[in-house]
Structure formats: C-alpha cells, structure tokens
C-alpha cells in the first residue's frame, strides 16, 4: 500500500516546496501539489497545510485561506479520520476553519519571534511515533501571531484530551 499525500499552496505560502520534497523523499507514494482554487482533493492519506503568510495575513492570519475553494474537501478529508497537518500559518488556518479549537493572537510585546524551541513528546501519535521517548528536539519557530488563546472550557478539553 503506498502512502499518498497532498500539499496545498495558497498565495503567500512558503515552505510548501520543502514539504513536497520531504514527502517525496520519505514516502513511496505520489505527492500532489494542490493550488487553493482547485475544487477537489485527490484521495490521499495525509494533507499538509504549509506555513507562510497566506493572503498576506490580511484581516487575520489564515482567515481568507480558511474560506478557499479547496477547504471543503480538506474538511471532508479530516472528518473521514485521515491525517491532516497544519504547520505555522497552516495551524492558524486550521483554527480559522474551526477544525482546531482556539485562535492565535499577536505576540505579547509585539515581537516577531524567530528562535529555536526545545521540545519533548508527551504522548505518542502517528506523527511522532518514531521519535524516542525523552529525546529533546530543537525545533525552529518564526511567528508574529503565535499566542494561542482559547476559553477555559476549551483549555480543559485540550488538557483532558492530551
């Protein structure tokens, strides 16, 4: 069985080609490059929404991208239980769609944060199962709106679901 994947590009996306290159290297199956105006998503196992500044971050980061033509099929894909990953602006788009809870605010202190973060996995899932428990990963972040916000009920949901 081959693993099929798709990467969606919006105007202002970046690192979408990196995602495609990685998927081509790591998986044997086809990697579809999808423009946001396309109306149908091929039948794939994984969809990636890449980072960047979709639609110039106008209105709110990810707001316009979340209303793109292709998103209806992205929602169907997610609802069928298949894998969906949002990186950076892709994560913001997922919150704007409503597939993820909460929203992202401008960073406190108005700083654009570009730095390395050190993270460790706290649970095991499909995306991180090959990473050893306890291993510290050095992951770069670069964002202006990375301040996650949600109400208390949502926070409780998220913590309970951990």
């Amino acid at each position, binding site marked *: 069985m081959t693993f099929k994947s798709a990467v969606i590009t919006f105007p202002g996306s970046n690192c979408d080609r990196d995602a495609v290159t990685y998927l081509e290297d790591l998986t044997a199956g086809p990697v579809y490059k999808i423009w946001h105006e396309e109306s149908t998503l091929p039948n794939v196992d994984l969809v990636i929404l890449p980072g960047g500044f979709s639609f110039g971050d106008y*209105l709110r980061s990810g707001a316009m991208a979340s209303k793109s033509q292709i998103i209806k099929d992205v929602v169907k894909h997610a609802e069928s239980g298949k894998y969906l990953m949002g990186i950076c602006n892709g994560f913001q788009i997922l919150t*704007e769609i409503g597939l993820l809870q909460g929203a992202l605010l401008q960073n*406190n202190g108005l700083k654009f944060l570009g730095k390395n973060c050190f993270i460790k996995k706290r649970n095991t899932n499909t995306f991180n199962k090959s990473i050893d428990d306890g291993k510290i990963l050095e992951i770069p972040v670069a964002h202006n709106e990375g301040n996650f916000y949600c109400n208390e009920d949502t926070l409780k949901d998220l913590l309970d679901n951990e």
Partner: protein
Amino acid sequence: MRLKILIRLKSQILEPQGKTIEQSLVNLGFKDLTNIRQGKLIELDVPDNLETEEKNKLIESACKKLLVNEIIEEYEVLG
C-alpha cells in the same frame, strides 16, 4: 448605503498594539491618555433597497463567516 463595522479584541484579551501606542504617547507627554486599545474599522456599501432586517442579516452573516473571529473578537455596526 455606506456602513462602518468596528471590530475589536474582546475586552479580556490583552491588546499589545494599544499598550505600545500608550507607552509612546506617555513618552510624548500624554500622561492622561490611558487604556488604549486598537481595533479595525471596515467600511462597505450595502444596497440601498434592502430592508433594515435584510441589511442586518447580511452584515451579521458576513461578520460571522469571515470578518470577525468570535473566539477573540467582537463587533459593532456603526451605521
């Protein structure tokens, strides 16, 4: 008819741009201007022939679908 929609972050959410503006104003000597918060103003035309109720529905729908993220923002139609 031209309408204005004022969108702001909910009052319980820290609004860092307003804080920064406030600090600059203090530096300029405006010590009496406090609690500054910055929002967004959207101006748009709605058809003149719409009844008030239709107009309100149209605006509400546009706000909920795109213009406003009600998790963090609230809006007010200024007329």
